[in-house]
């Protein structure tokens, strides 16, 4: 069993939900990333989504766009992100790491090379925002599977039921439900609407479902953990990082403090 499946199984036994924080790799500088990942795990993160910086993150709001820009100022490449995961794995062999980003940097590396190097670095899965199942079927899906990597797909409020089945079949590891129509960091979510949609999704899959976009605080994390298998939180952490560009030593402690707060609320 891979790390993602093991993680959700353990949580299920405990009756808890996964807390899945997102940070952009290399933001605000490459040295900050691995210590922040470790600190977040200590504070109760179950899975880490690590963003691959991209110059044109068009599904993201200004928060993540700026995080990408800060990271790219240091020239962070996809291969550097894989190095960070490798370093993280020196101390942590248990916590799943999922790469999240856009297709173009992956295309440049080549799908096969990406999958092989990611697996070797200790990555567990990837969510490529602008690669829906229709475009992934074929080479991308094959090389991910061949290297034991999960392919995480998005589901959205706009995803029609006829498509839900297709996406559920294509996905592995978990599904990422985008709770609001919008970009990352946008409006607050409607928990009842999320619950209704997840009921539909669960007719087609046994995969765990993480919910992201619009989770801003302990209250919304708690509410979402009542209806989902995982709570994905990004912009609120990235905003904290943005506020600490001048005090980078503080980043692991202050970001993980937010993670701890969300964890406490979810487990209460």
């Amino acid at each position, binding site marked *: 069993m891979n790390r993602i499946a093991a993680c959700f199984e353990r949580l299920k036994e405990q009756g808890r939900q996964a807390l899945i924080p997102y940070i952009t790799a290399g933001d605000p500088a490459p040295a900050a990333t691995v210590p922040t990942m470790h600190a977040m795990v200590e504070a109760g993160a179950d899975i880490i989504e690590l963003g691959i910086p991209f110059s*044109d993150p068009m599904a993201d709001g200004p928060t993540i766009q700026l995080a990408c820009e800060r990271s790219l100022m240091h020239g962070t490449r996809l291969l550097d992100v894989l190095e960070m995961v490798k370093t993280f794995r020196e101390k942590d062999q248990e916590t799943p790491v999922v790469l999240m980003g856009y297709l173009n940097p992956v295309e440049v590396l080549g799908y096969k090379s990406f999958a092989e190097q990611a697996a070797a670095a200790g990555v567990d899965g990837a969510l490529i925002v602008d690669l829906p199942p229709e475009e992934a079927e074929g080479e991308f899906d094959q090389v991910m599977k061949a290297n034991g990597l999960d392919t995480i*797909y998005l589901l*959205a409020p706009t995803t029609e039921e006829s498509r839900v089945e297709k996406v559920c079949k294509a996905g592995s590891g978990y599904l990422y439900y985008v709770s609001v129509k919008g970009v990352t960091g946008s409006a607050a979510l409607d928990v009842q609407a999320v619950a209704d949609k997840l009921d539909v999704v669960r007719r087609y899959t046994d995969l765990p479902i993480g919910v992201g976009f619009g989770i801003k605080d302990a209250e919304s994390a708690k509410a979402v953990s009542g209806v989902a298998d995982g709570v994905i939180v990004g912009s609120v952490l990235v905003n904290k990082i943005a506020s600490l560009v001048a005090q980078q030593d503080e980043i692991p402690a202050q970001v993980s403090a937010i993670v701890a707060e969300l964890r406490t609320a979810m487990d209460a």
Partner: protein
Amino acid sequence: MPIKTDLSTIAQMPDERGHFGPYGGRFVSETLMAALQQLEETYERLWRDPDFQAEFDRDLAHYVGRPSPLYHAVHLTELCGGAQIYLKREDLNHTGAHKVNNTIGQALLAKYTGKPRVIAETGAGQHGVASATVAARLGLKCQVYMGAEDVQRQALNVYRMKLLGAEVISVESGTRTLKDAMNEAMRDWVTNVDDTFYIIGTAAGPHPYPKLVRDFQSVIGREARAQCLEQAGRLPDVLVACVGGGSNAIGLFHPFIEDADVRMVGVEAGGFGVESGQHAAPLTAGRPGVLHGNRTYLMEDDAGQILGTHSVSAGLDYPGVGPEHSYLKDVGRAEYVAINDDEAMDAFRTLTRVEGIMPAIESSHAVAHAMKMAKEMDKDQIIVVNLSGRGDKDIHTVAQIDGIQV
């Protein structure tokens, strides 16, 4: 270069998934998939609907002023001393460029699908103006995203859009040009997908946009083909058009794809010179990648980050290109070259002085290359240049180059 694929196969692209060979496709986040699916179904139905076609044709005739003339530029021809140069006068369209052909079509789609709000991205402002124009006419709310740098260099068009009732949103992110405007427009669309129609200005983006924009713009090539046959008694030898995203070029080229003897040349923005790296010529100097919903030639660094572009022309200042052009390049049906800023500016001045026609700086790139080609060709040969827009909007830029405060 020999053509590697059967011409009718080339003409029938894209396939049902929006792929032009390896290019095109639908590389967007999940939230937009349903909207694109719906747009595709609506478009395929309406494009075959005689009532829709009739309304589109009527608008092109009586609102846009089509057909646009094919003008035999005898003075420019004489100056070059070679092939006969004909100008397809898209600059004479209502709003001053070819862009309106597409916005008329997409606004009709918005109307038929009952969306009360339209958004658009714009570089030079021509597509923004064309979108604001059709929105004003149909009573649609219109917001236009424009890079902050372009807002400055195309102040006239910004004000035109405001007068037309559109709101212009200045985009400060990234390189503050067309690609960033497109990012913001995509973000808006993701957020407001229920009530908003996104009028994409060029034959790029996720399927079905490259196809439908091409279809709306193909009126250019259909007219030019008939006009050339009528005026010269035969088809042209060469078609020349500027390529940013490439909608005017694909509009001219597409109806000629199966005419094997007609060469097609797309002219990209060479900026300070392709060798300088400061240009906007992905087909000439880039490589395939994925951006803004499609796979196509891009300007990117070796890690896959999109590069900033440079062109004196805001309308060509884009790091990608429509996927059909990438395909036409690879199969050898069209050729792509780059013209530098100063060559384009020379052509702008030349055409203005010898024909009394002031071209957009975008179109001046095509004129510049056509002049080069004409000199090497025989007098009984014919070049049709797509004069995609008029130069009034560029007076400020030209004056600035001349060191004059207008």
